[in-house]
């Protein structure tokens, strides 16, 4: 356990080493958030009386919470694994007496903690000054947090599977770019999933993306029945199980395929 905690510390240190770009990243999030706020406010105020799945308040809160979550959930797990497999560095990781996936996970947690402190907390403070409303449904906060934890695991396992594709692919960035684009749209990190047209909702039912943002953010920001909360959490649990088994299988098959030249 101690060793994994040290790995998490490395994650924190690596992330905070370049303080210069942190400011630019933080500013970028504010630029993004204000644009989304203005866009949705503009849309709602010029379409009053129309039947829209979410109310204006819910939409704005959704956008804010999704941005706050993505500020610490999104890490470079795919790039780390890609890089280690392509450079052959993964061999050095394999000879360590630690589990590879847990090592990556420890580093991921460390990075998330760093990002939470650097981005999510100050962003939350800025938002509470300029948009002082209650962001979360208090009664559902506990389920929301549980859902975030599940979403965090799904996001990690998904990233591991995509990262391990480097065992088979020589060039990985086109796949990453393709999936990043789909992920951005379908996960609900950008547009509230409730706003999706019918066919996207149907496609989304069989894909894991909505379990990463759409489900936890909706639980946190929109009042819903206990039954549908349970249903959503169950969907997330199923995805954790499916992705965990898939990632184990991909790891075992990929590892046997691995040949590292030289030493």
């Amino acid at each position, binding site marked *: 356990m101690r060793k994994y905690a040290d790995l998490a510390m490395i994650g924190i240190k690596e992330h905070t080493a370049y303080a210069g770009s942190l400011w630019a990243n933080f500013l*970028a999030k504010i630029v993004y958030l204000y644009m989304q706020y203005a866009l949705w406010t503009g849309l709602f105020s010029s379409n009053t009386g129309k039947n829209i799945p979410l109310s204006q308040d819910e939409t704005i809160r959704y956008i804010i919470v999704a941005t706050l979550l993505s500020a610490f959930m999104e890490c470079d797990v795919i790039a780390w694994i890609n890089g280690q497999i392509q450079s052959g560095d993964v061999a050095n990781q394999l000879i360590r007496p630690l589990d590879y996936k847990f090592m990556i996970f420890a580093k991921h947690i460390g990075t998330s903690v760093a990002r939470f402190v650097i981005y999510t907390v100050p962003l939350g403070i800025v938002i509470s000054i300029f948009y002082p409303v209650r962001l979360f449904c208090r009664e559902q906060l506990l389920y929301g947090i549980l859902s975030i934890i599940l979403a965090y695991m799904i996001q990690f396992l998904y990233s591991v599977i995509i990262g391990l594709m480097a065992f088979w692919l020589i060039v990985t960035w*086109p796949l990453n770019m393709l999936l990043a684009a789909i992920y951005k749209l379908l996960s609900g990190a950008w547009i509230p999933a409730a706003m999706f047209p019918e066919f996207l909702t149907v496609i989304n039912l069989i894909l894991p993306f909505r379990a990463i943002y759409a489900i936890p953010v909706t639980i946190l920001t929109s009042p819903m029945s206990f039954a549908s909360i349970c249903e959503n959490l169950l969907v997330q649990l199923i995805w954790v199980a499916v992705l965990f088994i898939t990632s184990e299988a991909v790891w075992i098959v990929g590892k046997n395929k691995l040949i590292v030249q030289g030493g």
Partner: protein
Amino acid sequence: MYLLKMYRHFVIIYMKGKLAYHFSLVFELIANTIQIGVYFAGFMVIFHNFDTIAGWSRNEVLFMFTTSWLTYSLSCFFFWSPMKDMGQLIRSGKFDLYLTRPIGPMLYIVLQQFQYTFIPRLVLSVFFWLYSMRSITIEWTAYAVLFYAINMLSSFVIFSAITIFTGAVSFWAVKSEEITSLLTNNNHGLKNYTDYPINIYGKGIGFLLTFIIPYAFTGYYPVASLLGKGLPHPGFAYLSPLIALISGTAAYLLWNYGLRHYNSAGA
């Protein structure tokens, strides 16, 4: 004329180099197509539940932002890659190489490459530009066509000037990549603000996009005038050529000033 000839030679060499890895070239184009395609898909999803924004219909907004994307892609063919790399060129000392060429360094770094990764953006913009044109009401009189064409040209100059500006900043602040990203990133860049009518933003942002980083003149003001939208200052619709002239000159002067004061980082 000799410039065109030189550009042709450069581009042929450049593309030969890229085509040596034709798989990665094809992947690059596909990946870019998907990235831009998803942006348009997202735009359609956003408007799925809504008809209008600030008095603009969906297709009017689409027409406005593809107008500015068209000129942006064209400008990026020439300026984006060299200006994005300026920070790197200066840090590594490679920029000194261009100072020893028989043509100006700006001309050289622009002519020696062709940023084909913007082709998908251009193609998709043209597609949605034509798509949006079917359902908007603009009377294409000779005057309107001329007005639109002049504004396209101005918008090209404004985009190029802003790109050159971000590149020229590298002469002083060695990390200009962050400024470039803040302005033009596909997810959170300031340029995205101009994909929608700017009267949805507060006054401060309107001022910023009009007078400080004049993105609003690349699409919003002229197109609003063409579509007969009420602007708070109707005269702004005719200012694009002037703004283009000012920003172009400013970028030119800043670049030259930076060049004169450039001390090599050491080779």
